[in-house]
């Protein structure tokens, strides 16, 4: 009898201990995740509050974690200093044009690889995939000469045309097209529907999520591209946003007017965040399959 009571007490004790351990583990998990989240967010926070401080406040010996006086004018100054208006327009022109053209080319190629039968299809597809392993810089060296000879220097064309075909996007869309049952295609053929109409009315709507992912990644690519635009179109009229930002604020260390610089960085980052907030699902779906930025 006595023994039994002891036993029950012991059991209660262990289950209580287990609960404590479980709670402790959960607590540590949240503590770790929240600390990491704060570290990840800190640069964004620092960018925003710095962009709203006066230069004098930014240079205080003991930093303030919220501006004493909010200086919106930094944003006006940044916008003018970097000529951001013109840069935004240029980047939008290049981004929209290259995305639209790229989508058309990608859809047509993916359709051919997924639905049509032709000699050498699989060999060609494998060769295409093999080119994905080659670092882009290897192409840049020759492409630089090619676009010079074509007289494309300092035009929108040079920023759009060389990168219209992305093997990865063709691959992605082909996989998606392959999931659409072939019976649909054959039925459409029997009804006398043309290929293009079938492509537009059936396949494109069914593959819409992939197409949206491609669109976003392509636009982000235009927004973030740096090296190629710097080489071939670094004139006032065609300069893109990333180059404009880098050119306007050449020094990053030392005696710099950081509030204005941070305001410019915030302005350049803002559209990306807006797109992210509204289209998070598509970006994450596209990115997890690509591993590439833009």
């Amino acid at each position, binding site marked *: 009898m006595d023994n039994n009571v002891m036993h029950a007490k012991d059991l209660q004790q262990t289950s209580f201990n287990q609960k404590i351990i479980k709670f402790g583990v959960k607590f540590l998990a*949240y503590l*770790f*995740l929240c600390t990491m*989240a704060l570290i*990840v967010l800190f*640069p*964004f926070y*620092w*960018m925003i509050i*710095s962009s709203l401080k006066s230069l004098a406040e930014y*240079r205080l010996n003991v*930093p303030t974690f919220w501006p004493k006086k909010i200086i919106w004018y930094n944003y006006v100054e940044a916008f003018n200093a970097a000529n951001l208006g013109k840069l935004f327009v240029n980047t939008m022109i290049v981004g929209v044009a290259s995305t639209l053209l790229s989508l058309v*080319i*990608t859809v*047509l*190629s993916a359709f*051919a690889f997924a639905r*049509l*039968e*032709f000699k050498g299809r699989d060999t060609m597809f494998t060769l295409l995939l093999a080119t994905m*392993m*080659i*670092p*882009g*810089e*290897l*192409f840049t*060296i*020759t*492409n*630089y*000469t*090619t676009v010079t000879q074509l007289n494309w220097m300092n035009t929108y064309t040079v920023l759009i045309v060389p*990168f219209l*075909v992305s093997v990865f996007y063709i691959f992605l869309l082909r996989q998606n097209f392959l999931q659409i049952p072939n019976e649909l295609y054959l039925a459409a053929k029997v009804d006398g529907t043309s290929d293009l109409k079938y492509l537009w009315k059936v396949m494109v709507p069914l593959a819409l999520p992939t197409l949206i992912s491609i669109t976003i990644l392509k636009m982000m690519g235009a927004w*973030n591209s*740096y*090296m190629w635009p710097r*080489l071939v179109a670094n004139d006032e009229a065609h300069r893109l*946003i*990333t180059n404009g930002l*880098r050119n306007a*604020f050449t*020094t*990053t*260390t*030392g*005696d710099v007017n950081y509030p204005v610089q*941070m305001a410019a*960085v915030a302005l*350049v*980052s803002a559209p990306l*965040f807006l797109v992210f907030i509204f289209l*998070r699902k598509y*970006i*994450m779906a596209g*990115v*997890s399959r690509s*591993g590439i*930025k833009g």
Partner: protein
Amino acid sequence: MVDNKQQWKAWLYLSPAIVLLLVFTVWPIFNTVRMSLLENYSGLKAAGGAVFEFGIGNFQKVVEYKRFKECLTNTVLLCVLTVPISTLLALLIAVTLNSIKPLQKLLQTIFFLPYVTNSIAIGMVFAAMFNIIGLRPDGVTADTWGIINNVIQFFGGKPVNWVNQGSQYWANMTVMVVYIVWNALPFKILVLLGGLQSINKQYYDAAKVDGTSRKRVFTRITVPLLSPMLAYVIITGFIGGFKEYSSIVGIFGETMGPPDAAGRLNTMVGFIYDALSTNSQGRASAAALILFAIILAVTLFNNMVIKKHTHY
């Protein structure tokens, strides 16, 4: 008949892609090999009608350059430091994230945020955080140490000259590693969390019934079943690491180093662009082919190691 029509149509649909690929992808591959094998090839001189001898001099010269060795060292060092750190950290975050329910979606979104940024723009923010504020070019009068040094001082440490005039190489490298890891985390967390969520719950239930310890569950179930995803993030991490360039431009600007040590942090890709900008296409091509060979070798090596340890 139908077959022939399909052939014809397929090539028609493929024609825009094929034309562009021939000009901007296929031709460059052959041309790069060609230029790398012509002694001292220069696009400018070639346009003027110069003829170049055949030989492997470009490769020899590139490898002998002191600059090239520095670039290679920097690139390898950044890869070796950032890939393991970011992979381990991402694994830890993904596993922890997978174990909680409330706030999971919110935290997942926060961890993905650095991905949707411009690496040059946010590099400028990191530069500002590590900078010694108001340091004049003569390096004498500084207003304050800057936020990172403030934090270090708060915890009783000594402030460090991270990125300014007169800073040490290891300090510069530390900043780069911090920034690159911060930048690399989102993609890795996304992929690893996706992998974790697709692991069949039955394995864990079985382990629970057997009373398996947490550690054992992690090393015997989670890691093996996650290994294809781990392999994927490690390989893409190395490929990305060998092409590192714009993150350094983001922090140090085009000088690729602190003001008094320009080019000290230059990478392989930076070396190629430098050669290109002096119209030494022969050297640039040789360096690009060396970079390609390294990436290929590292990928194959990774594949070999991973095949041994991966469970599909």
